[in-house]
């Protein structure tokens, strides 16, 4: 990653120096060092702040939608997982691809600092890697661990860096009884503080005004006075992303309460894969998604009732 980090920075420099773009979307060194924030770089001189390492989890594509009004082209660095969200935003006309200089960059998986800490690794100074092993030089000496063990949840669905089956956890959840699921989610979702971080970081949540912020929508609500509100908010959020969510994992990554939101998103993706499979080529070309297309042979909703498991 060290090598690619240098080349990425070099690429960024070239783009800004050559004037291929007016600005570049990248990451800047975070004070903590473990969660680099997205930043706009307007000249090569500003690139001192630029960083690309194992802690650049955030997805830059959504910011492009916010920069739509800006003059001139914007260059953006896209990791593999971010490219799908980028494509969705283009498909939904939230980004004008003509205005974007797109740079696909390599990524060997981003590290979840919490997972590292849980392994008792603290005082991190530098991380290097060899093979699938990370070498962490810390204040307390050199530590090692397998990189897959400390990757962000989102990276586990990336075939390039992880051999895990992203849907395993969903499958296990499906195996549980209805009541067990209810109790699991009651515990998990009740901790939601409605900070809206999941929504704000989500690249598919780009409505001009979210219905939860619109008093006229009949759905607005900020506080979670009743558990229903928690269920409702997360159901609607997931449903609005259904067929559009690219499993970029931002929601899970940013949730301060550690709610396993990926279990919801991946469930929808799993359902869509199992029930509807791939979109037809024609629908794909038209830019449709799972909920804006159909097939005559689609299953009837009773298929849900026929699922086994104790209710």
């Amino acid at each position, binding site marked *: 990653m060290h090598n690619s980090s240098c080349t990425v920075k070099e690429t960024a420099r070239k783009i800004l120096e050559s004037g291929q773009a007016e600005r570049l979307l990248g990451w800047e060194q975070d004070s903590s060092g473990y969660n680099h924030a997205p930043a706009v770089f307007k000249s090569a001189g500003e690139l001192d702040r630029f960083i690309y390492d194992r802690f650049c989890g955030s997805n830059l594509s959504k910011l492009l939608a916010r920069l739509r009004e800006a003059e001139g082209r914007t260059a953006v660095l896209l990791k593999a997982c971010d490219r799908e969200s980028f494509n969705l935003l283009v498909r939904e006309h939230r980004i004008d691809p003509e205005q974007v200089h797109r740079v696909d960059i390599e990524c060997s998986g981003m590290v979840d600092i919490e997972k590292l800490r849980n392994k008792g690794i603290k005082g991190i100074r530098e991380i290097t890697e060899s093979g699938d092993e990370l070498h962490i030089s810390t204040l307390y000496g050199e530590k090692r661990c397998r990189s897959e063990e400390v990757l962000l949840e989102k990276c586990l669905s990336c075939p390039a860096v992880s051999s895990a089956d992203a849907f395993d956890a969903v499958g296990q*959840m*499906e195996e549980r009884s*209805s*009541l*067990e*699921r*209810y*109790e*699991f*989610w*009651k515990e998990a979702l009740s901790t939601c503080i409605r900070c809206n971080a999941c929504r704000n970081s989500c690249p598919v949540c780009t409505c001009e005004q979210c219905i939860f912020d619109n008093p006229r929508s*009949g*759905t607005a609500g900020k506080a979670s*006075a*009743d558990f*229903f*509100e928690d*269920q*409702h908010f997360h*159901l*609607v959020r*997931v*449903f609005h992303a*259904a067929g559009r969510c690219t499993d970029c994992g931002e929601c899970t990554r940013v949730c301060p309460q550690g709610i396993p939101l990926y279990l*919801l998103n991946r*469930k*929808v993706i799993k*359902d*869509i894969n199992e*029930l*509807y499979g791939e979109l037809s080529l024609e629908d794909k070309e038209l830019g449709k998604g*799972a*909920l*804006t297309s*159909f*097939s*005559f042979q*689609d*299953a*009837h*909703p*009773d*298929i*849900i*009732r026929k*699922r086994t498991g104790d*209710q």
Partner: protein
Amino acid sequence: MSVDKQPFKPLIAAFCCNWCSYAGADLAGTSRLAYPAEVKIIRVPCSCRVNPLFVLRAFQRGADGVIIAGCHPGDCHYTTGNYYARRRMTLLFSMLDYLGIEKERTKLDWISAAEGVKFATVMNDFSKEIHALGRNTRFGDLRCTTAVAQ
């Protein structure tokens, strides 16, 4: 509308498309085919008009079951509306099930304008299922349901 000490009286919201299922309900009425009074119908132009938000809203406000009825596949007045409804509701029902809300509380069925008997049968069967499940405790808003109890 007192709740206590009375046998469980469920509340079922039925969204019926104007062209087929609402007419099927009319036919059930004209044919004097009884189904429980707890089934109450909301008329929508097409099953594809039913926003999942409406279904959630009904549960929030105290419904114990929600059923959506539309034209049979291929017969939609708007040609394809029910196909979209089918996908949406399948995914919605699946998510509710996944969140541990009893999957029998939601249903979608196709009822044509000629199927008065089917309308009554479907509603009777659905009502029986809801009776068997009992009150919706997993997905209601206490603030709304306590208002009913008063």
